[in-house]
């Protein structure tokens, strides 16, 4: 028993000291003075409910678009020649090593009223008035999908790589259409990757701060912004902790739900 747990001990200690302990302390903050008033406020007031809902809505949309773009990309990278796979990796990973702030500002240059996209379209005569792509919901969505795409691509890539190429080859040899091969072989076998990528992207979206603040023009309010306000401006840490705890609980709930619905599919087919 002891021997089996021993190798994991350093990691467990690290998690305990730097993750579990702070979370427990934070939960302690939220019920400071033995009262649940702050939870009542977080869950009772229209403002906070609306913002929680907004946050989840954005996270879901970002996850959806990341999956839509990330699955084909991950799939291609896993099945193409080594040269193109390497190129794919460079393009996926390079942004990951760039600061989120830099990437967000880059989008401001591209998407603005006088940005590269709008100017090109106007000069080409496609449109006469600039399309509002920045300082609104669209801008936030584009920026977040870009930042989070690697977290979707990489798990899917590794899941597709694990599929034994003999299986789809056999299916093709037996006359299965490419769609059937995808639906009956790749999809079930890569569900783990889809699940892992989606959870990663979804959870990371929930805590996003910089991109919505800069690309949303102030109109897109997410819960991280309100928590930050409570911590740094209002200095109301119990309330900030309560808001964080609600976000954490909701995240766990979504995670549990997703896991529950993803597993039966995997085992029965």
């Amino acid at each position: 028993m002891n021997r089996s747990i021993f190798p994991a001990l350093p990691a467990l200690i690290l998690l305990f000291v730097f993750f579990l302990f702070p979370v427990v302390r934070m939960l302690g903050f939220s019920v400071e003075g033995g009262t649940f008033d702050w939870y009542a406020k977080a869950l009772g007031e229209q403002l906070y409910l609306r913002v929680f809902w907004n946050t989840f809505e954005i996270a879901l949309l970002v996850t959806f678009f990341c999956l839509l773009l990330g699955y084909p990309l991950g799939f291609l990278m896993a099945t193409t020649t080594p040269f193109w796979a390497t190129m794919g990796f460079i393009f996926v990973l390079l942004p990951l090593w760039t600061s989120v702030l830099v990437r967000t500002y880059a989008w401001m240059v591209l998407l603005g009223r006088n940005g590269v996209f709008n100017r090109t379209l106007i000069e080409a005569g496609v449109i006469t008035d600039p399309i509002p792509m920045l300082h609104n919901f669209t801008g936030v969505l584009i920026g977040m999908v870009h930042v989070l795409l690697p977290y979707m691509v990489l798990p899917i890539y590794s899941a597709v790589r694990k599929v034994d190429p003999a299986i789809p080859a056999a299916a093709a040899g037996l006359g299965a259409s490419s769609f059937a091969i995808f639906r009956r072989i790749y999809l079930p076998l890569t569900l783990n990757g889809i699940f892992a990528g989606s959870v990663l992207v979804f959870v990371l979206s929930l805590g996003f701060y910089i991109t919505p603040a800069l690309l949303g023009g102030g109109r897109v309010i997410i819960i991280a912004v309100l928590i930050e306000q409570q911590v740094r401006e209002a200095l109301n840490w119990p309330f900030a902790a309560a808001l964080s705890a609600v976000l954490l609980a909701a995240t766990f709930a979504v995670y549990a739900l997703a896991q529950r619905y993803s597993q039966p599919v995997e085992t029965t087919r």
Partner: protein
Amino acid sequence: MDIKRLHRRHALSLLGGAAAVGATGSAFAQAEPPKPAQLVVNHSGGSMGTAMRKAFFNGFEKKYGIKVVETSPVDFGKLRAMVDSGNVEWDLTEIGGQDAIRAGKANLLEKIDTKVVDRSKYPATAQNPYVFASSVYTTIMGFRNDVFKNGSQPKSWADWWDVKKFPGARSMRNHPTDNLEFALIADGVPKDKLYPIDFDRAFKKLDQIKPHVTVWWSTGQQPAQLLLDKEVVLATGWNGRFYDIIKKGAPVGIEWNEGALKQGSFAIPRGAKSPYWANKMLAELAVPQQQAVYASELGYPGLNLESLNFVDPKVKPFLPTAYLDQQFWVSDEWYAENGTKAAERWNAWMLKKG
């Protein structure tokens, strides 16, 4: 240099009472706590840090042989966490005006040692026992002067609200402070009757301008950038940020009328490692000649009323202290009490459709 020494002697004379009488320079030096290897000063960073180094830190290092370590950004939450945990990394920190007042009341700050820091040339409003007023800044209108040519820009908040006469996309700060006041002024409230703020009246007026504000900015650099990119033609912003791009030749102008004045503040966190030397640094920040150097760099003049005498006449038109009468002071005291309520109303208003 001589003037600085004189200034120091002046501070010495302020020691007052029997203790100071007959105290020689060397006796004073003996009474000084030992010099630390370094003094940690926390500020907003960016061009402000560069200007502070040039105007104050280099001189301080040379004078006392104490290295000045700079950190950023300004963070009220972090300040409280430091003081609460007893692990105070900062000897001196910049702090927002209303936060400074709350921090003083919440016992998070050390009192300023007026024997070391000479504030005799400071206005009465800048004499808070816990807060050192380092500079003045103001939220004013920036405009594209290729769109609003020859002084045709809005000249009051009533003009700013008049979207027929002054068409074009606008940007304002994503924060209740300033905007509530601007709305009330636009609605006809006199500048000296703004507080206590009438929320309902202010938000009703803000409803009118909301569809014309394309960007609610959240970082200080945004308004300048938005004007440069022509994303908007009118933007409220901090005077120094506009001064910076105007210096570099941007087609941008400043309208100072009815601007919202605030003081930049520094304070010593309770439990700071070298409070005495932090006070010495504040004394350095109070020297009018050095404040003039700082003002020329950034456009943020100090509150030592003598400092304007040392500023290049070419820079003066870009300093908010040259237009004090046309502007109004934002009440840090009111926001210290009502800031949370204002923020909640603001968020709810922002979420409202339309």
